[in-house]
């Protein structure tokens, strides 16, 4: 057993979520569970299929969506050269996987906790909900662009109070922002905890309202990474004091008032 390691693991399953795993769409990748001591929601892994040879050099970082002693599940959006090739993997293929990497979301079982997900940013919250001792204290809000069945929303909203808004027209964005504002204000008032994951504009919105209302909020960043282990310094962001810090090792989760987005 090991705190963190790099292992070749087998692909167990690649299954489309919602529609198909064509470009722009979503799939779940289930991999063999390596000999980890454990993991925490918010942590991520780097994966690199061994058959990539030298064409694509870097592994790709993904939040751990969920994991048990048997398998690790990643929730992936097909958006580029790497993810489109990962979508082509077949059961039995071999992938180098290193992790679990980075820090994790705060967990305060007794505190009302708001989960704010922007699209694919819902991925780490499945594991969070599954491992939370009091899911009745959790509330989930998802802002999304693809049809709802593309996201693991239903499985989560069965367990926690869930709400979602699809962004199809420009005015939908206002509705999303207003809802986020209302929720963040509400959680600030009751000294709740806010956890968020999504694209940078989404994170900036969370940060803006969290600072405005004095809410305790965490943001999970998804900067481009080459190594995932703190060496390449390609994924840095600025901390509260303006110093560059690695998202892979000092994050990916930061308190919203201690990071520059």
């Amino acid at each position, binding site marked *: 057993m*090991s*705190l*963190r*390691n*790099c292992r070749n693991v087998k692909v167990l399953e690649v299954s489309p979520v919602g529609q198909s795993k064509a470009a722009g769409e979503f799939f779940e990748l289930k991999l063999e569970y390596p000999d980890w001591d454990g993991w925490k929601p918010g942590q991520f892994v780097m994966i*690199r299929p061994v058959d990539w040879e*030298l*064409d*694509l*050099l*870097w*592994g790709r970082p993904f939040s751990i969506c969920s994991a048990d002693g048997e398998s690790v599940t990643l929730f992936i959006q097909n958006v580029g050269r790497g993810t489109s090739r990962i979508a082509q993997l077949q059961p039995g293929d071999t992938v*180098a996987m*290193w992790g679990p990497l980075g820090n994790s979301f705060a967990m305060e079982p007794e505190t009302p906790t708001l989960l704010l997900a922007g699209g694919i940013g819902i991925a780490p919250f499945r594991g969070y909900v599954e491992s939370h001792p009091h899911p009745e204290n959790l509330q989930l809000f998802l802002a999304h662009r693809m049809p709802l069945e593309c996201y693991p929303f239903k499985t989560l909203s069965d367990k926690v109070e869930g709400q979602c808004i699809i962004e199809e027209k420009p005015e939908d964005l206002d509705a999303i922002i207003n809802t986020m504002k209302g929720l963040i204000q509400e959680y600030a008032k009751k000294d709740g905890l806010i956890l968020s994951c999504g694209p940078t504009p989404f994170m900036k919105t969370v940060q803006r309202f969290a600072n405005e209302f004095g809410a305790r909020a965490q943001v999970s960043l998804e*900067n*481009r990474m*080459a*190594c*995932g*282990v*703190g*060496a*390449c*310094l*390609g994924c*840095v*962001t600025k901390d509260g004091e303006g*110093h*560059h810090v690695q998202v892979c*090792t000092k994050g990916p989760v930061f308190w919203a008032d201690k990071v520059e987005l």
Partner: protein
Amino acid sequence: MDMKVSFGGLDLKNPVMTASGTFGFGLEFAPYGDLEKLGGIVAKGLSLKPREGNPMPRIAETPCGMLNAIGIQNPGVEAFVTKYLPALARKDVAVVANLYACDAEEFGELAGVLAGEDGVAALEVNVSCPNVKEGGIAFGQDPAQIGRVTEAVKKMAGNKHVMVKLSPNVTDIAVCARAAVDGGADSLSLINTLSGMAVDIRNRKPRIANVIAGLSGPAIKPVALRCVHQVVQAVDIPVVGIGGIASAEDALEFILVGAHAVQVGTANFLRPDFAFTLADEMESLLEELGAESLDEFRGSLQLPL
């Protein structure tokens, strides 16, 4: 087979070192393998004062390679000595400090700070970083400056081995190599990254905030081999080959051309345990090839008459 390599007072368990800027301060990679399996660790580039480095984005993936413009982000030499070196020095592996400065005097000062550190086996002088606007490139491209910087480091380095890392972004790398030799270098390491660029036609922006960046990875291996070949022919001091090594075969290509040792860089990003098994794989491959020893194989390239 004996894989030990010794040159200029630097003793390596095997010819595999990790290249500066690709292996942090070494300890980042401890969860993935035994650091003592390595011949040497070249630490992330150090400057006298801490540096924040360049703005983001800093890296881009390119065919069989990558671009980076990190800009020598580092905590400064004092923090290295007090916070990182003690843990690293407890490991039985040669630690090489990589030095970055803006003039010869500052290079000398840096060397002076590290000269008394028992945990440091050698100093690698970065005269070739293409990323830092205040003159990194000027040293690497001007033989006279290379000579002056090497001399300044050597003068302050006490009994430390001084390795000078050369840039490929020059007209004649052999001239730069001779300048380092004249300055008193104990060995040369080459190549640093090739100057490069990537742009995005969709948003019409450079992919790297610094615009110009350094290309590394398998894409540059042919250039690196050519440079090592030319330098080995031109000078009599040992050469450490760097550039796109991603397998034992790649590493042995540099040895065949005449390199004493190699540094693995970008391949550390392919998977974090890459470097740990490389020396064993090189040994097996040498045996498979029927080589008598590493020394026998080194520089045995048969050139056309």
